[in-house]
Structure formats: C-alpha cells, structure tokens
C-alpha cells in the first residue's frame, strides 16, 4: 500500500470518520498505520516523514460532484463464468449488523461452510487493520467516506457485474451512485436516517407540529432524560440543524463553533447523555428524547417492557426530507481468497427475501424495490407507529448526506466535538 495520494483543490484531503460509528469513543479505536515500512525507511533520511507530497488528488464525492473511481492495472476484475470456491467466506462487518440466519441460508444454498463474521467497532480500527496487511477477509462493509482510501489504497477490488444480477432489485439510484460511478466497486447495503426518537407518553410535544423540531432536545424541563448520539458528525450536524444550517459538510469555522456552542448549551440545560444506546433506552423509558438512527428504533417492539405498548415510541424525521440520510456499502476486498463466492454473496444480499430476513434482525432496511413501509407493516415486521423509520426513495434523494471532509475542516469538526464531550 502506498500512502502517496495527494491533495485536492481544498488542500490535503482527509477522510471523514464514519458517521455510522457505533463506538466512537471505544477503547479499541484510534489506530496507527500499517504498512509503514517504506515510511520507516524514509525516516532514516533527513526531513520529516510526510505521507503528503503526491500528485494525484483523491476526489471528494458529492451529489453535485459525482465520482467514478479509476480502475488500476494491478487490481483487475475477476473473470466471468467461474465456479464459486468452496471455502469459508470471511466477512468483516460492524457488530450485530447482519442476520446470522442469512449467513446460514447462504451456506445452505451454495453448499459451503457458514460464513465467518469478524467485527469491528469503528472505521478507524477497521481501516488500520486492513491497511496493515495482517488480516485476510473477503467482504467488507464500509461507509461512503472511506471510498477514497479503499480505492486508492487498493484495498477493495472492482466488481464483476455478471455475478450480481440482483442489482436490478435495488433502487435505480444505485446503478450509478454519485459516490461510485457505474457501481464499479460497491453495492448498497443498508439505508438509514437520523432523527429524533421520543416517548409519546412522557413528552406531550409533537415534533411534527413544532417550528424547529431539532430544538426539541433543548428543553430544560426534560433534564436528565435527553440524549444525543456519540458520533462527531451526527453531533455537530445536530447543532448545525438546530441553528438552521443544512449544509452538513460545511467547512465554515464559525458555523462549526456555533454548533459546538449550541451543544454545550444543551449539556448545561439538560445534562445531556451522549451514547448510542437509543435502541434500549427509549423503549425502556430511561431516556425520553433521543437523537437517534432509524434502524435503531425499528426493532423497539422487542425492547419494550412487559405491558407497555410499542406505540408510545415515536420516531421523527423531517417530512420534507431535509435531514441526515446515509447508506452503507458492501465491497469485496482485494486479497479475497474466495472472490467468486464473495460476489455471489453480494448478489445474495440484494435479494428481496434475504433483505427482509436481514431486516428482522438488524432493523435497518436495504434500498430494495420490494421493501416498502407498507410491506413491512403488512408482514408485521414493523409496527405502524414506527413507519417513519423506513426510508423512501424521495427521502434519500432530498436528504443530506454526511460525507468526506477536507482535512482542515475535519479537524475543526473533531475539535468542536471534543469540547462538547469534555465540558
């Protein structure tokens, strides 16, 4: 791996950290490079060891600036028409993010051993291990902001579309998404929104009728019962939206510090909790208003205490669609030992039936044509009161994604968040 990629017009590009990090502050994070061998050698020469000075720029994909990643000669597509390997597929995924049942069914279908899942707690850790070259997986579930590193670092291989006909079952957007033109390297996995979950029986206000629903959290009368997500992108974005700013990839320092100030204010007013346990806390009534992810709230029914109906839990996302949305991806890693099988797995996960099976476990839906809110309610996979946790294609197209930031801006976001967390 060669850390030689360069600078964009804005300055040295730097990948933002995943917004979907379950464990932003986990102990296992914060990682160092692998593959620093060449750097080490360079160190003995004079001058600071910089990974900077390159000539090609890593583009930052945006809806207004779609990117088609290049193909590299030393990272070829596998040939078509091959037979799948009979080995154990090795999957590298978030914790509890795929239904074991899906894996078992896959194994039965292709007559192979059950795929083995290794988990990571956040993307820094995952990327550090992948870069180190000391791990060997077939499939990886990244977030969009990692695309640059993955492609230019030659960590993932381009896909051979002939093995993945089920792409037709996914929303047409994903046949040519802005972050991966012509779906060269990825297929979509889950799709989700960030909104506010609240207990209707404890909180009389209805965010659908409020002037500034994001400010719902800033009410001192709910002191001790308010929580926000432990993720620097989500946190600062919340502050931005409360202040009326909807550019969630802003590089404007004063906007970022205003957001940070708003969050500090929130901490003082409500003694806000910062955690990712919305999926248990809101059903259990420990937290009454939680900034949360759609997929965390969908399975609320299985966390409700005995005798409490699930319709006391509500989930709000802006009806005009102008709120944070995101999707995760599935990729095949370059050193995969079972590349054909991996491709078939990607195909398998794009199938409607498997998507529904997966949903019953994770609560996160996939952008497949057959997965509609009505269908989920009809099949009793989702209570009617939580229909808002599903994502419609219109939401996805109007929503704002939290994407890769240039280096200095990312540093501002991180620092702003550090202040909030250490108030």
């Amino acid at each position, binding site marked *: 791996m060669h850390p030689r990629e360069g600078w964009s017009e804005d300055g040295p590009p730097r990948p933002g950290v995943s917004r979907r990090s379950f464990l932003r502050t986990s*102990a296992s994070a914060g990682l160092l490079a692998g593959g620093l061998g060449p750097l080490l050698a360079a160190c003995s020469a004079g001058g600071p060891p910089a990974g900077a000075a390159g000539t090609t720029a890593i583009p930052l994909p945006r809806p207004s600036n779609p990117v088609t990643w290049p193909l590299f000669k030393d990272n070829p597509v596998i040939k078509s028409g091959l037979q799948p390997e009979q080995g154990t597929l090795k999957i590298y995924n978030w914790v509890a993010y795929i239904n074991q049942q899906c894996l078992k069914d896959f194994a039965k279908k292709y007559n192979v051993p059950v795929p*083995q899942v290794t988990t990571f707690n956040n993307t820094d850790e995952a990327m550090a291990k992948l870069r180190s070259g000391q791990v060997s997986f077939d499939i990886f579930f990244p977030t969009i902001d990692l695309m640059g590193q993955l492609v230019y670092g030659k960590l993932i291989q381009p896909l051979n579309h002939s093995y993945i006909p089920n792409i037709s079952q996914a929303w047409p957007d994903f046949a040519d998404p802005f972050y991966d033109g012509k779906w060269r390297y990825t297929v979509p996995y889950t799709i989700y929104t960030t909104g506010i979950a609240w207990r209707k029986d404890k909180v009389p206000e209805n965010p659908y009728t409020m002037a500034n629903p994001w400010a719902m959290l800033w009410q001192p009368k709910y002191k001790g019962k308010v929580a926000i997500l432990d993720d620097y992108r989500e946190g600062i974005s919340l502050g931005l939206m409360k202040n009326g700013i909807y550019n969630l990839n802003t590089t404007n320092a004063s906007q970022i510090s205003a957001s940070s100030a708003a969050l500090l204010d929130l901490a003082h007013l409500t003694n806000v909790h910062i955690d990712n346990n919305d999926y248990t806390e809101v059903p259990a009534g420990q937290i009454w208003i939680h900034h949360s992810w759609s997929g965390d709230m969908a399975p609320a029914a299985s966390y409700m205490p005995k005798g409490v109906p699930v319709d006391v839990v509500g989930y709000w996302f802006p009806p005009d669609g102008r709120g944070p949305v995101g999707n995760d991806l599935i990729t095949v890693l370059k050193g995969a030992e079972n590349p054909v099988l991996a491709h078939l797995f990607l195909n398998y996960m794009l199938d409607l039936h498997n998507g529904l099976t997966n949903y019953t*476990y994770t609560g996160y839906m996939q952008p497949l044509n057959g997965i509609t809110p009505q269908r989920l309610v009809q099949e009793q996979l989702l209570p009617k009161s939580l229909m808002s946790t599903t994502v419609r294609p219109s939401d996805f197209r109007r929503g704002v994604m939290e994407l890769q930031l240039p280096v200095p801006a990312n540093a501002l976001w991180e620092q702003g968040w550090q202040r909030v967390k250490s108030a």
Partner: protein
Amino acid sequence: MTTTTATPAPAERAGTAARSALGRLRPRRNPWRHPWFLEGWTWLYLLWSLVPVGIAVLFSFNNGQSQSIWQGFSWRWYFADPVNSVLHDPNLHAAVIQTVRLAFYVTLITVPLGVAFALGINRWRGYTAATFNFVMILSFVIPELIFGVAMFFVFTTLFTTVGLGTLAETLALVTWNLSWPAIIVQARLVTIGRQYEEAAADLGSTHWQVMRRVMLPLLTPAIFASAVLVFSSVVDDFVLVDLLNSNSGNTPMSVYIYSQQKGGNGRPALNALGTIMLVMSLVIVIIGYIGYRWMTRGERGSRVDAIATLAGSD
C-alpha cells in the same frame, strides 16, 4: 518489623487506667468477644459485591433481549434459540475457546516469569534491578489503550513476523499482566524476610534447594493469588485483544461483551455465556481444590486449612 512501643505496665494498672478513662459506667467487656460489627461489615460488602452477579445470571434466562426488564423465563439464550443461542452461534463458540485458550497461555507464561522476576529483582540489589523494577511498575500504570496502540504499531510495522492474532494477543497480555505476580510476590517477600533463606543456607543448601524447598512453598499463596488475578484479568481484558485480533477465530468473549454494551443490537446470549463461564470457573476451582487435597494428602489437616493455604494464609 516494627514493634509496639507500649510501656510494659502491669495489667492491673492499665486496666484501672482504662476503666477510669472510659468512665466507671462502662461495663467491662470481653476483649476476645466475637467481632459482630466486622462480620456484619463483611457480609454487607459481599452482598454489595455479588448481587450484580446474581442479576447477570438471572437475566441470562430472560425471554427477551433486554438487560434490565424482565420479560419471562426461558432457556432461549442457552440452547432454545436456533440462531443466536450459545449452542448455535459459532462465533460465540470460537469466542469461548479463545478466551480460555488465551487465559491459560498467558497465565502459564506470566506467573513463572513474574515470580522469577520478582525474586531476582528483590534479592539482586543494584541500580539495574531498581531500574527494571521501575519499568515493571511503569507497565502497570500505563493506560491500557496507549499501550495497546503502541503494541499494534510495533506488531504491524516492526515485528511483522508476529503480525496480528493469537500470538500477538498472548505477547501483549503477558507483558501487560507481568506486574501482577511481580508486585504481589515482592510484597510477600518483603514480609517474609530473609531469615528462612539464611537458615537454609546455613544448613548447607544450594541456591536451587533454597528456592525449591523454602522460598517457593512460602510463596505459594502469593503465587496462587497472582495466578487468579492474571487469569481473571485476561478473561476481562478487551482493549488489547480488540486491537490485536485478526479474525473472529481469535476474538475472545470480552470483545463481544464490550461491543454489546456499546451498541451491538443485543446479544443477550452473552449473559448466558457469562453464567457458563462462572459455572466453569467454579468447576475448575473445585477440581483444583480436590487436586490439591489429593496431592498433599497426609500432610494437611482440615479442609479449611487447605483452602486457606491455597488462598493466602500460612
């Protein structure tokens, strides 16, 4: 050892003084009476300490995914649930095996290494010894995360033949836990003093004989205590192993438990796993106790003596 500096006054005078100091109204109490206060204190502490253990065991039989709301009794997480129970989830199997494997490897390496180190450093005076003693303590107080990060770095860029995986985890854990036996054995050595060694030497034994027949038996409680601590420390550790694992085959239970707490969408099977581990540990201790009794049959007296010796008294 410090000695008391009380003046050797006759008992009567002290008794009178005590009585007058406390006031004549205070009845004379038996100084050898059973310390009810202390016993109550101990039981209160034990209750405080063990109630959560009971709760963890209880919730392993919970019929739902919640850790705090009781949803009915079931064996679901042990074997009834066909996908997510301990019996049916291959990742959990691998995790248990890895936990036990790591715990044994690390304990077997750390305890002898640490004991030898403690003995050597303590008896070998000099600046080198003191320096390494200091380094050992440094390894104890360093925050685990920074140590883990540095180890990850070292294993992926410097000692790349080690790489990531069980070997890396073992090496890091041994280094991390070396201070347990080192500190505990040193503390014990300090209180034992040199008299036994010197007596044995005077009687003509060589160093090895002194070690084997005098020091090690005297240190058995400390060695045992440090083995228990190292074992449980490894079972609990999640920072180092999370950083140094390379696939689910070398990921121990602690990482799963930690991820569950921080947002993995519910793996209550882990409570079941924890209960199983508890039962397993109890079984191991019972086996160890029976084994010890069998090994020292004819030498030892009552059962309590045996347990007490294993755990700390002489």
